[in-house]
């Protein structure tokens, strides 16, 4: 039980994939203009991360390692990720066409989200079992969601605020992200 708590705290706060490990910055900056689309993206990415963590563990344990094909890990994992993302895309298109349109090109771009591949590869290097891998995947998604939602809420306020002309848009967003990152570094040493 405690082990699960440690895994979750670690992946959500201490080693947050976006602000501490600096993975998955593309959707982080790209879909954080509005709170609604950020929530949608966060949910989609969490879904993808969890499924990917599980699927990549299975592929690794049952296909790659027995056959001695460790060197194919990267390709195989990308195959897994692409399939999961495609599935997610179809699912979202059916259930929420507005979210589908709002996410636009960022939905298939989850395939290239380095956080997803990062989670899959990091899980193999840590020698975890199935449950632990899935939990890491879920924790990564939760951490990504937390940061994305906080950031998009701040960006919405920044959009209405009196930002100097030269800082409007991406510049002030980057500065904000940097400050958030500094804040999250305060979690190091928590566990």
């Amino acid at each position: 039980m405690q082990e699960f708590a440690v895994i979750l705290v670690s992946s959500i706060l201490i080693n947050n994939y976006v602000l501490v490990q600096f993975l998955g910055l593309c959707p982080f900056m790209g879909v954080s203009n509005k709170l609604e689309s950020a929530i949608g993206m966060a949910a989609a990415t969490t879904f993808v991360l969890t499924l990917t963590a599980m699927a990549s563990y299975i592929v690794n344990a049952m296909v790659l390692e027995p056959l001695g094909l460790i060197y194919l890990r990267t390709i195989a994992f990308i195959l897994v990720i692409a399939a999961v993302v495609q599935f997610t895309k179809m699912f979202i298109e059916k259930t929420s066409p507005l979210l589908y349109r709002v996410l636009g090109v960022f939905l298939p771009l989850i395939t290239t989200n380095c956080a997803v591949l990062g989670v899959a590869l990091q899980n193999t290097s840590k020698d975890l079992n199935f449950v632990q891998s899935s939990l890491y995947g879920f924790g990564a998604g939760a951490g990504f969601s937390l940061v994305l939602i906080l950031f998009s809420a701040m960006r919405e306020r920044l959009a209405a605020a009196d930002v100097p002309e030269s800082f409007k848009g991406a510049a002030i967003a980057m500065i904000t992200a940097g400050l958030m990152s500094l804040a999250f570094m305060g979690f190091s040493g928590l566990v």
Partner: protein
Amino acid sequence: MIELIAQNPILAALIALVGLSILFGALLGFAAEKFKVEGDPIVEQIDELLPQTQCGQCGFPGCRPYAESIAGGDDINKCPPGGQSTINAIANLLDVPAPELDAEHGEESEVKTVAYIREDECIGCTKCIQACPVDAILGAAKLMHTVIADECTGCDLCVEPCPVDCIDMLPVAETIADWKWSIPAKPGQMIATDRRGEVSPVAQNEDAA
């Protein structure tokens, strides 16, 4: 079988990858069928935001065709009767940046207009009745035509067809009922470079020198 694969690593790799691809392909194929999507409800949502004057200034024969075109990726700044507020609303819906109104398609007019037929000159030809997209003109052949002001959207389509040119677009007067407060001026700017159009004293001196 396993020995064969163990001895031929390249074959093993190929089989593994192909096998995985087929597996995932099958799964996705099944999912594609299950999650098939018909139609495009986004068009409805865009159409809700357009002003429904059916005037054709955007280049499309009505508001719904333009909504369909926007759903297909067309520019959102082609509607003058909607003006900047409609552009902003559509931009908000689609989460794209909001551009300025495209002047090629017309100017946004501050004043709403309503058509008025000068009854003395009307010859009862029904051409304007046929042109009106919302059936706001009352009349019949050889009988007086008149515009029902409450239903007129100010789209201008009746002015052209009239052979005796007896239709005027009159501005709708603002009454005390539609009057509203205007937003106050922005509070003072703190940063010098933000003052619009003002040249900084340093630059002025440099220019003079």
